[in-house]
């Protein structure tokens, strides 16, 4: 079955697809977005039930291999010490993210010039700044102006998230050491905003926000995009992007909710499937013109996969803290963000405060770390930890390496028979040293704050939340997959807008930059609409 060609086909309704759809909607073009998952129902989110912590390990688990829902595709990540986290549905990974929403720093776009590693981006902080601001306005961001770790900006911010007892405790630790900290920029609204109700401290941000206060793309961009006429088709999984004899994209073939194969023709195709889903789709889109996969003349599709290796460091305190109540993020530190020649690694990391844990996670963590035993002493030792744990994670910049990559698994397939991705990834020496540094510094902070016991893990094996670099942007077609405004070097009506196009990863959560980039690419398309394919 086929239908009349649409003007723009967007594949993926997550963070970047949503921003792109909304931005392009004002062109009045016929825009269709295909999403393999469904529309989310916040009233069915785990925090509406008593078993919310259990569901965070099952149907709302961050690993698709654990979640195994119909919308999910399996990922062979057995050859990676960091496992992929994602979510498939309208809103994509933002359904499960914590809402941490920092921008990149100016130095993040110039790592080769400044530090002699990786590549510079083909654009800079100043180019993206207006799009960061627009994205903040669309999303609703809590925070506080004046952070000395960042350039000043005039973006409107909602009041910061409450420090709480945990934030206050750790802030005292930072102050004792005279180290930087600042209220986090967080995509969680602390006042009613854009028709959404403010945060009520459910504390279950990581399993979907039933309040709608967290800025997942389904509640920020999509309502506006749909009202502006964008057509969103859910439970439609794309198998391949089709091309004509001239090497132009002609649309896509997908399986609809009934499993029926559908061909949708389009004049422009935008891929927004994340740093694993996008290379998977491109590598699965082989043709006579593109035998090595679509847009892959550089051979770099799937290469240079970057996660952010995370270290997890938590302290046990004598006094009661916040437990799981409240958004997971309150403050962050960028004391160790910029390269320091005195250290044994380049680049740096953010320390993000993680507020506390629910009772189930407290028990499971305590048992895993040998702090809570089986038997009669379980109760005493559980109570020593419950509501008394807080700490942080170190979000480490990951540098691109070609051997870290996404390929197509020769055997594994999803429920529609589409070949699934395989991850090969090793932790670099630089990342290992950065993780060690992060654990050591966080330990100092926790000790300064009065912790009586400290637990740590590095890297967090299940924490491959951020998927970047596998179709990177650049000026040189031999060294990049898309150009400086997101268009494929090889296929002139094919665009990529997700984390795949990152040149480097920075040491902050990527969603704000992913969406700012999508808005930037959309604007570049609109500016060039008359000669978009030249």
């Amino acid at each position, binding site marked *: 079955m086929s239908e009349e060609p649409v003007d723009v086909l967007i594949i993926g309704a997550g963070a970047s697809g949503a921003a792109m759809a909304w931005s392009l909607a004002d062109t009045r073009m016929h825009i269709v977005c295909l999403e393999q998952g469904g529309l989310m129902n916040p009233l069915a989110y785990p925090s509406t039930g008593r078993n919310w912590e259990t569901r965070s390990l099952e149907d709302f688990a961050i690993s698709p291999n654990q979640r195994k829902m119909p919308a999910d595709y399996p990922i062979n990540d057995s050859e990676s010490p960091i496992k992929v986290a994602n979510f498939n549905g309208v809103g994509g990974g933002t359904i499960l993210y914590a809402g941490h929403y920092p921008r990149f*720093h100016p130095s993040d776009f110039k790592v080769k010039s400044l530090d002699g590693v990786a590549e510079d981006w083909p654009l800079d902080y100043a180019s993206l700044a207006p799009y960061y601001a627009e994205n903040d306005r669309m999303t609703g961001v809590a925070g506080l102006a004046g952070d000395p770790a*960042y350039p000043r900006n005039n973006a409107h911010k909602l009041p910061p998230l409450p420090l709480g007892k945990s934030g206050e405790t750790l802030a005292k630790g930072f102050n004792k050491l005279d180290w930087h900290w600042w209220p986090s920029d967080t995509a969680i609204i602390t006042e009613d905003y854009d028709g959404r109700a403010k945060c009520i401290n459910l504390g279950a941000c990581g399993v979907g926000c039933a309040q709608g206060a967290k800025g997942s793309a389904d509640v920020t961009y999509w309502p506006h995009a749909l009202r502006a006429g964008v057509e969103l088709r859910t439970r439609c999984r794309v198998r391949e992007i089709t091309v004509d004899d001239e090497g132009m994209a002609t649309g896509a073939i997908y399986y609809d909710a009934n499993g029926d194969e559908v061909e949708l023709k389009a004049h422009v195709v935008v891929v927004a499937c994340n740093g694993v889903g996008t290379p998977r789709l491109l590598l699965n889109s082989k043709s006579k013109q593109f035998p090595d996969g679509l847009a892959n003349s550089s051979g770099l599709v799937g290469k240079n996969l970057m996660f952010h290796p995370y270290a997890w460091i938590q302290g046990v305190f004598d006094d009661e803290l916040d437990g799981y109540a409240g958004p997971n993020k309150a403050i962050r530190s960028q004391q160790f963000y910029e390269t320091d020649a005195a250290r044994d690694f380049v680049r740096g990391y953010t320390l993000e405060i993680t507020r506390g844990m629910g009772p189930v996670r407290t028990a499971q963590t305590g048992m895993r770390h040998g702090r809570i035993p089986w038997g*009669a002493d379980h*109760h005493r030792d559980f109570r020593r930890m419950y509501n008394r744990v807080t700490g942080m994670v170190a979000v480490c910049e990951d540098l691109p390496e070609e051997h870290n990559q996404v390929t197509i698994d020769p055997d594994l397939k999803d429920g529609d028979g589409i070949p699934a991705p395989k991850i090969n990834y090793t932790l670099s020496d630089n990342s290992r040293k950065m993780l060690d540094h992060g654990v050591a510094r966080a330990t100092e902070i926790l000790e300064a704050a009065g912790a009586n016991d400290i637990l740590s893990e590095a890297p967090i094996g299940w924490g491959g939340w951020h998927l970047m670099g596998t179709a990177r942007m650049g000026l040189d077609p031999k060294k990049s997959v898309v150009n400086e405004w997101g268009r494929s070097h090889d296929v002139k009506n094919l665009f990529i807008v997700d984390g795949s196009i990152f040149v480097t990863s920075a040491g902050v959560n990527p969603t704000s930059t992913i969406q700012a980039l999508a808005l930037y690419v959309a604007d570049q398309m609109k500016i060039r609409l008359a000669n978009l394919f030249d």
Partner: protein
Amino acid sequence: MTKTEEFDATPLSVDETRTLSILADMIIPASDEYGAPSAGDAAIVEAILTDSERKRPRLIAALSTLEGLSREAHDVGFGDLSDEQRDGIVASFRDEHGRAADMIAALTVQCYYRDDRVMISLGMEPRPPHPDGYVVDQGDWSLLDQVRRRDEFFRKPD
């Protein structure tokens, strides 16, 4: 998009359920001091059975392993051992089959810590987070004054 991952949720036998109940009680016994029930309590075991649907084959295999260790060492099932014998078998189970033991412990705590009696014993309101939410203190924002006095310290590429 039509195929759904299927889970084999074969029910546990009476003996398997008894073994699970005894083991759950060994993981978290009742406490008079804290006014907390045992994880082997019938309602909590029932919750474990419901929660284990996705990993039922692994749960059954783990219980079978435990039962096998018991029969191999003492020629009787786990449910018929003395307390001392059980302690020894469970120690072997945890040493030799750590992942299976951890899986059962994880299932046990995830059901135990949402039981009304347990939540009340911890001073929690027995309810889900939504729709009422929680109150979180603002905290002492004057702590930020020290940081506000710092100069900008990000690198400027140009």
